[in-house]
């Protein structure tokens, strides 16, 4: 194969699909290369689909996309060993269309998304791994080399949507490799249960769904979170921790997952279920300060390969779609104006990113990864203190309430000191403002 396309997109996840779809719709010739047997076969996510990002690409996606349940209830749990304290938000408004968020099963969803990309006119090449980028004498990226005979394919621009490991970009020296303190490893199981059991256990009817996001004891003082999402007839349950922590703590991710599943607040929700798949994936959670150079002569990074993840809000696939779309729109504008995809011209991608929620949100939380990394009390001490406080206050045992209040305050002061508490409040405010 020695063909020439306007644009080559590497990867068929949300970022690659959003880019390829947008480019093909504008009439550009697009080749999309995917290493899996089918799009989705290598992809892993919780998974929540945030409608907004997809709606901007495919406004009527709800008519044909394989969606599991629309989310009417969001639970936030802070767990201790045997308990949790938390908040639930449920609203009838979330039950009214158009729905804002859905649970999805990525293998099915990605296949559908890829069908839309191909219908829009992009050519998809599956079962093909990109080995390297092709460059001209000046270093401009002019195509890719794939692991097939005579596997050189040329294009005016290459959009790299090759995921969290981003081997293609890293090997080409376009970015540094992701570091252990910027990568979370998430492991996940899909556990099948009868639909009625899920409805009853989570107080749901029809297509309604619930999600639980969790922090605290389940991560054994490591920086990480757990999740439980309801699909139609299955539950996705998983836990993720920073690789640097896993390395230090010498804990197997499977132990974490099994520990979480055995928690007395979680076990009944999945009891009797049949696990049907076990998955693992990295999430680039370094945030704003870990972002690499995002574009250069003939190339752009989108989605996870650039590290576009808002760890605080558990958003990633929407940032992937939006960055894929913004990269595509930048290229479409250049092609329209007959401008080459030079680094100088692709700087418009950065401007588009800066003007979008993507960079604004990443900037807002830029201090958060470092703050949580340096100040372990947020994940180690506070979950236990909050749970103890609730326990002390709620348990009726003849002790008067003023004494209970004092017990709680003493516990906080003993663990963190008064100055420590004030400092923590300030740190949290500064890290999230």
């Amino acid at each position, binding site marked *: 194969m020695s063909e020439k396309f306007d644009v080559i997109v590497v990867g068929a996840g949300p970022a690659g699909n959003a880019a390829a779809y947008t480019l093909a719709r504008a009439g550009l010739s697009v080749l999309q290369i995917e*290493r*899996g*047997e089918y799009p*989705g*076969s*290598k*992809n*892993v*996510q919780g*998974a929540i689909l945030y409608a907004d990002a997809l709606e901007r690409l495919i406004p009527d996606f709800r008519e044909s996309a394989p969606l599991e349940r629309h989310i009417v209830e969001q639970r936030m749990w802070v767990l201790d060993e045997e308990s949790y304290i938390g908040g639930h938000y449920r609203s009838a408004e979330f039950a009214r269309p158009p729905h804002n968020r859905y649970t999805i*099963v*990525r*293998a*099915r969803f*990605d296949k559908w998304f890829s069908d839309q990309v191909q219908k829009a006119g992009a050519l998809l090449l*599956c*079962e*093909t*791994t990109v080995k390297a980028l092709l460059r001209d004498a000046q270093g401009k990226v002019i195509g890719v080399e*794939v*692991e097939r005979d005579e596997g050189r394919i040329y294009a005016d621009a290459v959009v790299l949507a090759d995921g*969290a*490991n981003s*081997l293609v970009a890293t090997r080409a020296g376009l970015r540094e*490799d*992701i*570091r*252990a303190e910027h*990568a979370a*490893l998430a*492991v996940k*199981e*899909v556990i099948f249960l009868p639909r009625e059991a899920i409805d009853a256990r989570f107080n749901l009817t029809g297509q309604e769904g619930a999600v639980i996001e969790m922090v605290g004891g389940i991560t054994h003082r490591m920086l990480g979170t757990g999740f439980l999402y309801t699909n139609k007839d*299955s539950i*996705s349950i998983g836990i993720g921790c920073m*690789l*640097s922590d*896993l*390395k230090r703590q*010498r*804990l*197997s*991710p*499977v*132990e974490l997952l*099994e520990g979480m599943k055995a928690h007395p607040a979680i076990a009944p929700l999945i009891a009797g279920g049949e*696990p*049907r*798949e*076990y*998955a*693992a*994936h*990295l999430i680039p959670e370094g945030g704003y300060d870990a972002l690499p150079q995002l574009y250069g002569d003939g190339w752009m990074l989108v989605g996870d390969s650039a590290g576009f993840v808002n760890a605080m809000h558990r958003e990633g696939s929407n940032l992937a779609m939006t960055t894929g779309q913004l990269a595509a729109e930048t290229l479409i504008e250049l092609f329209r104006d007959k401008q080459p995809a030079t680094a100088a011209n692709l700087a418009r991608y950065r401007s588009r990113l800066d003007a979008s929620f993507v960079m604004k949100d990443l900037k807002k939380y830029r201090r958060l990864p470092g703050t949580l990394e340096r100040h372990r009390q947020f994940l180690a001490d506070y979950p236990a203190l909050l749970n103890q406080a609730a326990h002390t206050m709620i348990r009726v045992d003849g002790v008067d309430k003023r004494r209970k209040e004092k017990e709680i305050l003493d516990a906080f002061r003993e663990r963190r000191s008064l100055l420590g508490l004030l400092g923590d409040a300030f740190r949290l405010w500064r890290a999230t403002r």
Partner: protein
Amino acid sequence: MTPTVQAQIEKKLYLNRYRVDAGRPHIRIKDADVCASRCEAQQCVVCCPAGCWSSESGRVSLITDGCLECGTCRIICDQFNNVDWDYPRGGFGILYKFG
């Protein structure tokens, strides 16, 4: 790693679909002596979610058949950088039904 953890992992991997590229492992240890004589932590053995790595009397060995292609071993081997990591050839490796 305790046998129970390994047994738990094996039970989980049994649920998954793979197309194994027989005889062509996509991950290799660059220099086995580095693992044996210089690396004390051998964190790959503990952290791999698929239990691909094991250690017996200090020697680390690797079987990639159950690999989930996450990249953990590649990234946590940051002291000796002793993992030669690639994706499987196109179409091979893990095939997620749900993902």
